[in-house]
């Protein structure tokens, strides 16, 4: 068994659904006064979690403990923070801070040694202010009362960590921890995503949750667009052929006109 452990299992691709992003809460005036930095307006948590949520919890995702394949998650905050490189070596992989501005968080995931894989890096734009519909005229930064009223702001991106041809030992580890499936039925609002502006309404009303329906919904959106494009292509192709013929005819005429 041990000799087989360091053998890559060819033809196998295994992935783990994760989400990364942040939740932000606006601070009340009293809370602000207690902070060492009175200018900070928000408290936020940036995290890497499993995609499925624990039922009846107010955290987004995090049903599974990702510690079995993630060794460390490094969050690089804005340089103005003291000690901006925050390494989290055990779950939950998250950093909580207070602040007043949005910035890009660099997230780096290190995998357990058995994986034999290098770390992966990606970015998350820290979102403090509520989502607004494009062109709705609402101010990007609402007043304190409004911010408090609208509740915490969620900004999460679903993604899948894909391992190709994993080592047998690593594959064993992974298969020992099957991920929790996303819920089939809609229990809670969907997380808002800029790629789907239509989901703004559906994202309101409590802590959102990733669900299987979202994938289907997106597939349908893409298919609809594809159908539209194919239709247009057909139209334009006919137009092109028409033009081509006309152009060729004209060229022939021209040529004939030049050579009497």
């Amino acid at each position, binding site marked *: 068994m041990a000799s087989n452990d360091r053998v890559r299992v060819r033809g196998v691709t295994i992935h783990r659904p994760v989400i990364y992003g942040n939740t932000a809460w606006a601070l009340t005036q009293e809370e602000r006064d207690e902070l060492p930095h009175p200018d900070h307006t928000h408290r936020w948590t940036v995290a890497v979690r499993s995609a499925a949520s624990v039922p009846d919890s107010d955290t987004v995702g995090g049903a599974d403990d990702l510690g079995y394949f993630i060794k460390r998650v490094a969050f690089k905050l804005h340089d103005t923070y003291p000690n901006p490189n925050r390494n989290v070596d055990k779950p939950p992989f998250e950093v909580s801070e207070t602040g007043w501005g949005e910035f890009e968080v660099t997230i780096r995931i290190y995998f357990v040694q058995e994986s034999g894989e290098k770390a992966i890096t990606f970015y998350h734009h820290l979102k403090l202010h509520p989502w607004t519909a494009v062109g709705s005229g609402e101010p990007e930064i609402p007043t304190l009362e409004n911010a408090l009223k609208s509740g915490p702001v969620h900004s999460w991106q679903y993604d899948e960590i894909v391992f190709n041809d994993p080592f047998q030992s690593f594959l064993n580890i992974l298969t020992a921890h099957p991920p929790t499936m996303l819920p089939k039925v809609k229990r809670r609002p969907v997380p808002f995503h*800029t790629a789907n502006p239509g989901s703004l309404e559906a994202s309101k009303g409590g802590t959102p949750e990733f669900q299987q329906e979202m994938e289907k919904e997106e597939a349908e959106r*893409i298919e609809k667009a594809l159908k539209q494009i194919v239709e247009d292509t057909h139209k334009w192709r006919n137009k092109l052929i028409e033009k081509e013929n006309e152009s060729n005819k004209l060229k022939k005429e021209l040529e004939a006109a030049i050579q009497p």
Partner: protein
Amino acid sequence: MAASAADVRSILSIPNPPPAGPSTQAKKPQAAERAKKPEGIPRELYALIGPTAPTLVTQFAKPRLKQKPNLGGTSTPEDADYPFAKYNVPATPYVYSQDEYTRLLEDSKWTKEETDYLFNLVRDYDGRFFVVHDRYEFPGRPERSLEELKDRYFSVCRKLVRNRPWAGDEASKLALISSLTYDKGKRASSLSYEVSPVNVPVAIDKEILRKQYVASLENRTPEQIAEEDALYFELEKLKENERRFKKDRDELLRTLCGIESGLPDISIEDDGLASAALDTKKKKKTVAGSVEPQTPITPSASNVIALPQPPPKKSAAKSAAYDALHCIVRTEVEQTAGSSTKAAHIPVHLRSYKLAQPKTAIAPRVFQLLGELSISHSRLVMPTRDNLAKFASLVDAAQQLVEIKKAVDKHEQDIKTSKARLATLRGENPEGVEGGDGDALGTPVPMDVDDGAEAEGEVDGRAQSVMSTRSTRSRKQGRRSMSISSVDTAGGPNPKRQKQR
């Protein structure tokens, strides 16, 4: 009966027929005629008219055919809906642009002009390839066989379907492609040719083989046919003998050795002589009656092969669920050089890293197009494997659309340029143009003779159209462009000079 005719005569006070001798002679055939009295005419009436009034008879017979053939074609309403029109399903016409042709459809044996010609014919004759082949007459080409025409047509269609964006799912695309490919063996019978001429494609070799075979069948001499029949008959007789022999042997074995010996033999018979359906049915009946009732059907020979198969099947279904649970996707590994695959190991990544990207040259226009359809080009809400694949086909389709639009723009520009040049040429010397037109009708001008010179001409033409056309300088320029672009400047006199003369 004969008297009745006489009675009628007397009633109607018609004078009696002249001398009896000829009348009896005439009556005989009359009686024969009467025996064949057509149906639908009362006996009395027929007796009255008799065969002497054939015009009336034909008039009575006529209504059997209600509708007269309308040979003049004057009275049928032309605009009435033909009741069978709904069965006339038009085939999808396939057209292709120049760009598609150069990218996908190039073939050393075919020119674009000939392919165009073929497609026009196929469209004109509604995909009836026999007609197409009959009318096919492309100048400067030796005759092509029917198979060649079909092969070209269907291969082009296949390539178009395969490479164009497809709105439906993969399965329907594959179904269409396979309908445009040759269905091995059965479907390419001559019958289905007649029924759906467009949708029965050809594998050129197989088709030729099939036709050769048919021809050879047709060309057999009567002796050969007789011989074959005799041989077939002989074979059947041998088979029948074999069966009978086996049956006898079985019976014998069973009576001698009991149940155990009989079973394997039965199964072998089931295997080997499946063609004798009736016979085996009988056999089974006897088996069911006399020997063991439960296991006569499963052949022991195939059991050996069949046994190991079910377990993998079961585990395949199980492992699909297992894979789904653990998010595993298995792909076929080609067993080639191990070292090379090791080098090509794809490191761990986020799924969204593999989001499809359009070619950088046209990326902005693709992004704009996707934006119009409210699809983000950089992010997906759920970048799963399926959605990524869907997105990739979307980007691919968008890319094609953008390229087609670009080509349309280019051609519009070309048309504008050509028109402008033509206008200036015509404006300067209408006589020359007329002569040129006559020329064009007489001999088609080869288009692809000198692309380079043409391109130069175009550039000049465009420059010319930009400049004011009335100025003398532009005229000079026009003349120069003419001398550059015309294929043989030495051949014809310059139209400009002609005018000056």
